């Protein structure tokens, strides 16, 4: 069985409206974030991966399974959708338990798995209450528990941190990391870029139904040639360093950091720049730190998508 999620030339049109177009991806295990503005196609892509909608063109395989074979697919996949609706009249426990009974599990196994998932989502106290009375955050957590309850190897989460308080967000991020560390795929869509940056092993940037970039943030950033790399240097004599750097060929722009304790450099050849900086540092300059200043999702997003759309 292929341990990958693959999409080959996948397109989805809603009548004449484009959902996603010519998407070809190969998603390895780990945490992958789908990033893009409203209408970029994140949810469409997730619904396609789970067979809730069918591609107009192309083929999708999730660990080798076709998406129109739910009996195989959903043994391996758990999907936490954005749909904030539940079967009526159920408690949190019943919601998970009845879902597990649909797998054909015995009552005992379903009960055991349901409680395990409820514990992981930190919902034990509220499990016997009706879902209709839950807060938004609790509903989100019970949906996460449902996605996790059968211990899938692929976890697809559409805006999973929405409605959660900071503590719950941190707990969930730890949970996602622990799932990913077991060699599973965790695919997340999120609009909170610093969280995406913090948790993602790789990102897929979407805009207007097209994949704009994919891969690890650093690699994606390096691919963006038209925007020089930004480097933040902290040192004891920033003005002196600035006067030396401005003469370098690799430096496109040198700016004092607003706090006056460092420099922001833009360069088109970061590797060469680092070598030169090492030489300068040997001449009595005390460099405290050197770090990329735009090697994150936020910057990559800004460079690639810019102001085309506000983040969802």
């Amino acid at each position, binding site marked *: 069985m292929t341990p990958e999620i693959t999409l080959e030339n996948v397109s989805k049109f809603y009548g004449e409206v484009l959902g996603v177009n010519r998407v070809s991806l190969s998603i390895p295990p780990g945490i992958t974030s789908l990033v893009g503005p409203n209408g970029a196609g994140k949810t469409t892509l997730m619904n396609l991966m789970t067979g809730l*909608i069918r591609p107009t063109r192309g083929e999708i395989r999730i660990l080798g399974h076709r998406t129109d074979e739910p009996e195989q697919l959903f043994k391996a996949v758990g999907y936490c959708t954005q749909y904030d609706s539940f079967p*009526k009249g159920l408690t949190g426990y019943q919601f998970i338990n009845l879902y597990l009974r*649909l*797998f*054909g599990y015995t009552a005992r196994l379903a009960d055991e798995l349901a409680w395990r998932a409820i514990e992981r989502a930190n919902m034990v106290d509220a499990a016997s209450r009706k879902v209709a009375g839950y807060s938004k955050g609790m509903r989100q957590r019970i949906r996460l528990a449902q996605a996790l309850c059968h211990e899938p190897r692929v976890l697809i989460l559409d805006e999973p941190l929405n409605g959660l308080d900071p503590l719950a967000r941190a707990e969930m991020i730890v949970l996602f990391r622990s799932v990913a560390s077991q060699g599973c795929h965790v695919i997340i869509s999120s609009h909170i870029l610093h969280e995406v940056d913090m948790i993602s092993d790789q990102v897929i940037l979407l805009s207007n139904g097209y994949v704009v970039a994919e891969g690890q943030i650093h690699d994606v950033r390096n691919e963006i040639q038209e925007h020089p790399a930004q480097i933040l240097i902290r040192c004891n004599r920033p003005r002196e360093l600035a006067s030396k750097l401005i003469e370098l060929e690799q430096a496109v722009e040198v700016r004092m950091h607003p706090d006056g304790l460092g420099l922001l450099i833009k360069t088109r050849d970061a590797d060469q720049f680092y070598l030169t900086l090492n030489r300068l540092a040997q001449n009595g300059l005390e460099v405290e730190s050197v770090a990329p200043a735009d090697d994150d999702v936020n910057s990559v997003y800004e460079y690639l998508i810019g102001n085309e759309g506000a983040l969802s």
Partner: protein
Amino acid sequence: MTPVWWAQIIAVIRLETKKTFFAKRGLWVYLLALMPVVLFLGHAIVVGHQNQARVRLASKNERPLTHQDLAGIANGMTRQEVIQRLGKTPVAYSWDERGDGPNSSRIVVHDTYEYSDGVFELYIRMEGGKVTGTTLGDGETLGEDSMVFAGVFQFFYLRLAVFFGCLGIFMNLFRGELLDKSLHFYFLAPIRRDILMAGKYLAGLVAATVIFTTSTALQIIALAWSVDPNALNAYLYHGHGFADGLSYLGITLLACVGYGSFFLAAGLLFRNPILPAAGVLIWEALNPFLPAVLQKISIIYYLKSLCPVEVPADPGTHPLVALFISNPDPISAPIAIAGVIMVSLLVLFVSSFKVRRMEINYTTE
């Protein structure tokens, strides 16, 4: 069928049955099922009162009367002859009329006498002391009642109550979940879509069968309530009453099987339930006028043949209406039962293709 499929079907039935029985949007189905029960219950209460009135009337006779005594009264008999045969009447009405117009001086005396033997009731009309007319009315007989029941069952209960009840139950199985935006709950489980459809169909069938066969049973009980216990006993156990009752229950079940499959399919194919409901209703109503081949793609075609009592068309009824009422070409019970099941399976089979290709797109609902 694998054991896992059975377990999945049972899980779906468990989830759906509760929802179907207690759905707020399905309350009217109960009302629809209760309507004929109320009708027959009302009938039973009225008939019961009439029977008691006859018994009370009979108890006031000077002497016990038989049916022959009552039937022996004929036009032309005098008041004295009537009293001689039946005794003094317990109930009499009398009024005078000026004979041959308003200026006439002749006064005609009108009398009405009532007698009863406890079951039959005799009305005697007299003018000037002579019998001019009699009406011998009996209580409701089982024969008449069974005919009335057959008419209500075929032309209201099957064609309208069960029909629209099944529409309400089965169309909601998928349509209702799309409106509630909760269908994805099922579509994200490792269950084949056709197995899911089978589970939902069976859940709907359980609910519809319980509601409508209970209603049928209550209608029969209500009808039997007003009947003399001895006559009822004879009809049930020595006549064909018991078999007829079971037939009606079986036909109700088959109607749920048949209409259920149609409306489950309609719920997958149409957003608006009015169009398919009107379409199927017209198709079923037109059934007697369709070519033989098309008649078979219908539920009422088979159910009509299974009805134990045929409703006769009155003489003088328009031929088209008579054709609608009668069943000139009944088929045998085994073929009719197999026919309903085959048509239902065919419809479900076609629906399974639709459900396999179904997408979740709540924004378009």
